[in-house]
């Protein structure tokens, strides 16, 4: 594999802002969920932002992206509008899915976000299908699927790895290994330590990297995606990361030690990119301004989303079928 290009500092600074956008967004979800303003049970990607930003930096609008229940960050990194994404999580009419999907089912088709799914591992074959569609039509776009290490417990994970290699699909598997499947640590739910090890038996190239190190994610994803675009078939990228928040908003996290929680800050991808950029000669004041600008942009979008109206209850039966004649089924 060719050694990937190191992104210019100006790009890294942009990505620094992108990390802050996601961090701020998730913080607002957490704040408003605690206040009872967010229906359902949103899952936060706080602490995992570098994976979303580092991978999506290489994607075009036409590339398709599938994500999991923990998908706010990926959706934003792929280009979804902040206000419409937040409005969806609030269940508003101005949301991406007009309030039909919510946090676990975000879709922004215009930006290639073909969806978050609430069933762990359920998104993997969908992403393979999108890759197959691109291949079948001779289109240049690729498909990317984000999933947690918990998904490796599902049979369909293995079925999809096998099929992706057999059909040589342009599909990037991105595992965010945050060490937990819901509340159970990886040691307790799998005897296979590294998710990347599952790729070898199927003949798929794979790599495990530090997912909280944005330049490392950017480099590894860039190399993997370049090989996909050359038609070399699927690739599995395992990003070791850390879920700074609980499994869901309100999770008391009794399963984590105080020492583990204290070490969280040290692993923070934003802090780490900041140190990296300072080392490259960036001014702290400039970085702080970038962060502040991103925060303000998100906070304003969140406030606009909060003022939007809820969906009209009279529209609750829309979008079930392609035609009204099929939908005449009484409840």
């Amino acid at each position, binding site marked *: 594999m060719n050694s990937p290009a190191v992104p210019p500092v100006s790009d890294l600074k942009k990505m620094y802002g992108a990390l802050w956008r996601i961090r701020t967004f998730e913080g607002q979800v957490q704040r408003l969920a605690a206040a009872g303003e967010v229906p359902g049970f949103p899952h936060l990607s706080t602490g995992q932002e570098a994976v979303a930003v580092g991978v999506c930096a290489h994607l075009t609008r036409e590339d398709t992206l599938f994500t999991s229940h923990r998908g706010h960050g990926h959706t934003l990194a792929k280009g979804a509008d902040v206000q419409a994404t937040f409005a969806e999580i609030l269940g508003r009419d101005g949301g991406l*899915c007009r309030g039909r999907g919510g946090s676990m089912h975000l879709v922004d*088709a215009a930006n290639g976000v073909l969806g978050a799914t609430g069933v762990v591992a*359920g998104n993997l074959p969908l992403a*393979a299908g999108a890759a197959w569609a691109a291949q079948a039509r001779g289109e240049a776009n690729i498909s990317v699927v984000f999933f947690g290490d918990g998904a490796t417990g599902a049979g369909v994970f293995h079925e999809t790895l*096998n099929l992706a290699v057999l059909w040589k699909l342009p599909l990037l598997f991105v595992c965010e290994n945050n060490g937990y499947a819901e509340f159970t640590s990886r040691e307790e739910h799998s005897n296979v330590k590294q998710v990347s090890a599952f790729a070898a038996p199927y003949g798929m190239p794979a790599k495990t990297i530090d997912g909280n190190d944005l330049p490392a994610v950017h480099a590894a994803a860039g190399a993997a995606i370049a090989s996909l675009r050359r038609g070399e078939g699927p690739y599995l990228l395992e990003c070791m990361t850390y879920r700074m928040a609980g499994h869901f908003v309100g999770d008391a996290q009794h399963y984590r030690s105080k020492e583990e929680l204290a070490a969280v800050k040290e692993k923070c991808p934003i802090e780490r990119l900041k140190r990296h950029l300072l080392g490259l000669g960036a001014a702290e004041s400039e970085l702080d301004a970038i962060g502040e600008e991103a925060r303000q942009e998100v906070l304003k979008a969140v406030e606009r989303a909060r003022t939007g109206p809820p969906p009209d209850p009279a529209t609750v039966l829309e979008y079930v079928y392609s035609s009204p004649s099929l939908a005449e089924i009484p409840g």
Partner: protein
Amino acid sequence: MTQTFIEILRRALDEELARDPAVHLLGEDVAAGGAFGVTRGLAEKHGMQRVRNTPISEAAITGMATGAALCGLRPVLEIMFIDFATLALDCLVNQSAKYRYMSGGQLAVPMVVRTQAGAAGGAAAQHSQSLEAWFTHVPGLVVVAPSSPVEAYGLLKSAIRLGDPVLFIEHKRLYALKEALPERAELPRIGKARVARAGNDVTVIAYSAMVRNALEAADELARAGISVEVIDLRSLLPLDMATIAASVAKTHRVVIAHEAVQNCGLGAEISARIGSELFDELDAPVTRVGCPFAPIPFAPDLERALLPGTPNIVRAVRELAG
């Protein structure tokens, strides 16, 4: 020229593959013709990229068909037995059925899942079931069950052209049946039932292979002076209540017949809807013919003993007409 159910399905698939480059077939052994030979010769004619073999991975291939449909392909997936669709339920129920709705209309899943169901010839408990009611309970799915080769031709083509995920259920007992396709067969609208035989005394509502039993029963009852109207539902979801209502307004007596287990079967829903929507038309309670509450046995004598058939329909109609 007459053709079997299998040959007519193949013709419909062949024509749809030729008509629309978005149509792709996938499934276990489909490039080799499929377990029942439905897709024989299609890979040779349309290419291995259009007719693709898959591993025995029902969950993944159903997900792949769904994902490809989201991106504009029109996949036709073969699930060899409906019993194996249980392995694909997460995708069908949680993804395929709901994508249009969950995305607020941004995306659609124009896909057909062809599967084969029903009991015949000692296929036993895991290759004989009639599980259609599991799927008619899911908003967003369409469920179609043709009763004859000619019906299958039109319904399959219409299903492939629809913008929704369709479960297309083929009864194994119908596969060898032969019919001649009319010169210009008009494609039926999905969701529309048909009156398979007109009559005045009792309405028998059936679908799939049971329509043939209903027609046999109607012949026998006609000789006894009882005039039976047979409705072939064709589409189980959505249900064509208008056609049912028109018939009930004429006969005022209804028997619903299906091979599936009677308990919580589609007949229960139809009966409830006739009861609430057409109560004033009824001269007698709606009755049902269905399978007793047991798995399908292997031994041919036991299989015959369990399965509902023409005599059960005759008996049910006689009780109502009496």
